């Protein structure tokens, strides 16, 4: 079994979000980078659980980005990835990024490709679907449970107002979310082993980008909370009804 886990470098949830160059670029200075939580907690850990069940499983890690992604790759190694590919280019275009990963996937023939349900930077939830299209594989998004029986996967996924259980033959691309697995902390043995695992830096394939970011804006600041006295609940409801027209 060969599994590819796609990871993305994202600003830690508590990072201050600011922009530079006349609001055309994200201000990266002072940002604490982490593995996108959906990629780490759910897809990578589920892949590791599958390897624990079947030790012949090989877990490859891929990320598209420059050398400042190396620390998150080492963390993925410490948790349990076997070998990594860093495709050496920064991009914000979903198609461009997915095309790079699809090229790697076409060369290496994975049984399973895991992504997080979305990345907490650009929140596009698009990479998995595009990869699946480019390698002509089925795609199950928003998976909360994943079981493997031979070459068939049974996957529970979120749908509007409920969930659906689907059966699919491998290879398949799966986007993972809460429920798939539980967050893990790397242990010392993992951290030591991470130093020597192979991190392959590969150059991107030629691919045009389909979108470009014109600029960023911060949301308008809230006017500030209107506090109402605890003994005047009727006033709150009146404001919600007449001022906010919220019901």
């Amino acid at each position, binding site marked *: 079994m060969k599994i590819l886990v796609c990871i993305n470098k994202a600003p830690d*949830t508590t990072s201050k*979000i600011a*922009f530079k160059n006349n609001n055309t670029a994200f201000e990266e200075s002072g940002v604490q980078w982490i593995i996108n*939580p*959906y990629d780490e907690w759910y897809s990578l850990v589920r892949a590791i659980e599958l390897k624990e069940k079947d030790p012949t499983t090989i877990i490859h890690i891929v990320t598209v980005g420059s050398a400042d992604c190396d620390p998150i790759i080492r963390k993925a190694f410490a948790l349990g990835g076997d070998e990594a590919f860093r495709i050496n280019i920064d991009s914000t*275009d*979903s*198609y461009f990024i997915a095309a790079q990963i699809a090229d790697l996937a076409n060369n290496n023939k994975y049984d399973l490709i895991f992504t997080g349900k979305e990345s*907490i*930077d650009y*929140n596009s*939830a*698009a*990479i998995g*679907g*595009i990869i*699946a*299209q*480019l390698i002509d*594989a*089925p*795609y*199950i*998004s*928003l998976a909360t449970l994943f079981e493997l029986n031979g070459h068939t996967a049974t996957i529970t996924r979120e*749908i*509007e*107002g*409920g*969930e*659906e*259980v*689907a059966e*699919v033959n491998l290879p398949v691309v799966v986007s993972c*979310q*809460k*429920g798939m697995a539980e967050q893990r902390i790397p242990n010392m043995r993992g951290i030591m082993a991470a130093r020597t695992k192979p991190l392959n830096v590969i150059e991107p394939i030629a691919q045009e980008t*389909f*979108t*470009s*970011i*014109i*600029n*960023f*804006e*911060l*949301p308008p600041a809230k006017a500030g*909370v*209107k*506090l*109402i006295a*605890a003994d005047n*609940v*009727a006033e*709150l*409801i009146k404001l*919600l*009804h007449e001022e906010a027209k*919220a*019901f």
Partner: protein
Amino acid sequence: MSVLIFIEHTEGLIKKSAHEILTYGAILAAQLGTTAEGLVLGTVTENLTALGKYGVTKINQINNESLNTIDSKLYAATIAEAVAITGASVIIFSHTPTGKSIAARVSAKLKAGMVSGAAALPDTSNGFVVRKSVFSSKAYANISINTPIKVISVNPNSISAVIGDGDATINQLTINVGAPSIKTIAVNKITGEIPLTEADIVVSGGRGLKGPENWGVLLDLAKALGAATACSRPVGDAHWRPHHEHVGQTGVQVAPNLYIALGISGAIQHLAGVNRSKTIVVINKDPEAPFFKSADYGIVGDLFEIVPQMTAEIKRIKGIA
């Protein structure tokens, strides 16, 4: 050159998010000087002609049994054919679990640039620029789509459906549909509840409610408002409430007109799931709770005293006995 709108339905009925994007697509078509058409895959019981009132002239339907399995692979292939037949240059989806899984594949199939999770209508005054929220709603990005064909998935509750007059003509498309690549073996719908992502009003509870046995006050308030119910991560993790109610960074992201937080401190991870809400109300006994900084209205006090009074007052205004 037209705008094609992918219409989602469940149990034969068109979804609220689909009504919203019908309006979105109709306004965009007017902006571009073209027409808007809908696309329905699979079996519906609702009268599609009536969708004309949202501003579309034509509804295309592909009524094939295979399409009753929502398989992104099959859907993308089918929608791409429909795009070729209709000559559409902009394809609109809802940014819902189903919509987002299909939109990405369609964009790849058509080599079309995509903005997913759009927050507003495109600005077509100079190019084609779509606004979307990024960094878990802490900022917006204005993104230019540079390809001839464009794909947009629109966040639910970003635009209100506008209802006018008119009927749509129904056009049955004949397309050779293959077999699904997945097999659905079970569907578990939560019945009798309003889906969180579609709700206009959400009432959400945190650890301040002290235990699952105390949820009655919250449920009464939600019922009076016709609201969906939600919870914070600790509440979901402690199994006081089902997991699907968890809103926040790692749970469901919502953007209702009104979000009422009861006994939730407002950790940054929680805010990431709710800060697109139009109006936020916070009830918390701790005046230092960070949530007050992001709220529009708040009361510092004991929720067990305050919430029943809110419910009674809402019922009085709505004339519910």
